């Protein structure tokens, strides 16, 4: 088989063997509906409850604070719409940031159409929000602060504990989208004063289409999915049992030997970054150098465009992603790159390489070698690079 190097682990990951093995019986032999009273039903019910415990444990939450959903997007929608609708008599103001995932941003925009007001906090050049700006944005009408734990494009990790403290002091509900942070960062919802937290299985070597929302005990929010009595009347629909089992196993494994695993991934990340910086000029690291997810590498390469980098990498069997407009089908480059202040031209030339547990040192070295060739080749084709070289303006 052709060599294939997957460096897009922030987009999704492959299901780990151990996770798949746990899931398989629930497709066929153990196919009962968890709501059924006979034995086959209870087998499924027991499996779902085990997974709930596995998720709760890593968050330092209680079992009955975990609700399964169809993924990160649903969890974000539920948290934000649910809190907004439940609290609309109290206030109509929500605070978020400009660099949230679209699952949060588009949900906030939807609520704006329905009478809510949203403050989108700026971020600095590294993608960090300013805590003083957050405090200043709070009004008597503020009912929710929703700030992502770590950014999916540039990997920047927000000061979640401090945000939690500010929310608590002001008696405001705090939601965080932890889809990218889960499996890389130790999270303690109690110590961090997190009221709601979204997570998803497919970023941590679990299956796609399943996630969870942590809802702090006693917190009331409206339902998003109405129907049957599943998930204690709060999220209807026959449980995605095999998916939930996969999520439970995946999250448990993700927090086994977390430090050791992170150490390895950070080593690979730093090697990748150092080599890119040694071998290429006119580049810019996007995101923060240290407050950064272990597996995230994101650079802009001046004078060239991201999609042509991706196509060239793909031709070499390397999977990566870019914030260029050309890869999204829209006219503007990524909102995250614009929010950290990149001019459009530079934002178009961005490349994200995201590392995971299966990447190796040889892969890193191979990718850098190919990347340098590709960047050189595309730059030689670029009128911008040739103007820069010859000084012609």
């Amino acid at each position, binding site marked *: 088989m052709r060599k294939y190097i997957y460096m897009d682990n922030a987009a999704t990951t492959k299901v780990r063997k151990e996770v798949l093995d746990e899931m398989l019986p629930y497709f066929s032999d153990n196919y009962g509906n968890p709501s059924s009273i006979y034995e086959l039903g209870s087998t499924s019910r027991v499996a779902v409850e085990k997974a709930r415990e596995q998720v709760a444990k890593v968050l330092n939450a209680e079992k009955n604070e975990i609700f399964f959903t169809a993924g990160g997007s649903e969890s974000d929608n539920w948290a934000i719409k649910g809190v907004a609708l439940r609290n609309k008599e109290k206030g109509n103001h929500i605070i978020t940031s400009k660099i949230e995932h679209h699952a949060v941003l588009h949900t906030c925009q939807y609520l704006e159409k329905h009478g809510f007001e949203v403050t989108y906090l700026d971020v600095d050049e590294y993608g960090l929000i300013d805590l003083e700006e957050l405090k200043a944005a709070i009004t008597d009408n503020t009912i929710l602060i929703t700030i992502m734990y770590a950014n999916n494009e540039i990997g920047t990790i927000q000061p979640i504990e401090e945000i939690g403290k500010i929310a608590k002091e002001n008696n405001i509900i705090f939601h965080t989208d932890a889809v990218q942070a889960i499996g890389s960062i130790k999270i303690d919802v109690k110590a961090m004063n997190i009221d709601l937290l979204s997570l998803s299985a497919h970023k941590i070597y679990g299956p796609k289409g399943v996630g969870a929302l942590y809802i702090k005990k006693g917190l009331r929010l409206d339902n998003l999915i109405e129907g049957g009595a599943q998930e204690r009347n709060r999220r209807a629909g026959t449980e995605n049992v095999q998916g939930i089992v996969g999520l439970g196993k995946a999250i448990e494994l993700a927090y086994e030997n977390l430090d050791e695993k992170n150490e390895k991934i950070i080593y690979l990340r730093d090697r990748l970054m150092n080599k890119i910086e040694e071998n290429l000029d006119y580049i810019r690291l996007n995101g923060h150098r240290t407050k950064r997810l272990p597996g995230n590498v994101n650079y802009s390469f001046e004078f060239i465009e991201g999609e*042509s980098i991706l*196509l060239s990498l793909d031709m070499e069997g390397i999977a990566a992603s870019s914030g*260029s407009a050309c890869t999204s089908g829209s006219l503007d480059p990524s909102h995250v790159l614009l929010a950290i202040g990149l*001019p459009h031209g*530079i934002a178009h030339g961005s490349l994200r390489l995201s590392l995971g547990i299966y990447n190796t040192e040889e892969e890193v070295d191979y990718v850098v070698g190919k990347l340098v060739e590709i960047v050189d080749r595309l730059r030689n084709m670029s009128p911008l690079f040739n103007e820069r070289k010859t000084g012609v303006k």
Partner: protein
Amino acid sequence: MMYSEKVMEHFKNPRNVGELEDASGVGQVGNAKCGDIMKMFLKIEDGIIEDVKFQTFGCGSAIASSSIATELIKGKTVDEAMSLTNRAVVEALDGLPPVKVHCSVLAEQAIKAALLDYSKKSGIKIEGLDDFDFEEDDHHGELENY
């Protein structure tokens, strides 16, 4: 893959990349803001495009569009080059995804811009260029801020 084999082939092995020192006309269209810039160099003798080179900043389809456009006009007359449409570029590439059709428009415009430059420099009037509207090239200021 969203692109045809033809697009990928031209992206992998673009024809006529580079610049011409002794170009008779040079045209540049697009801007870095939108993510595409094309620059065309034409060498014209006796009304014939003797040589053509391009430089492109842009996505795969922008590079493929410029490459194939140079092939379509090389050795042709100025009038033939003038009549090259973006549709002809799209067809020669066995199609482009709808969001990428603007790349073929840029290729057509880059050639016309180079012909206009040639016309101005040589004093030879070219039919159909007077009312031509180019996309602004405003990338310089932006790169300066970086």
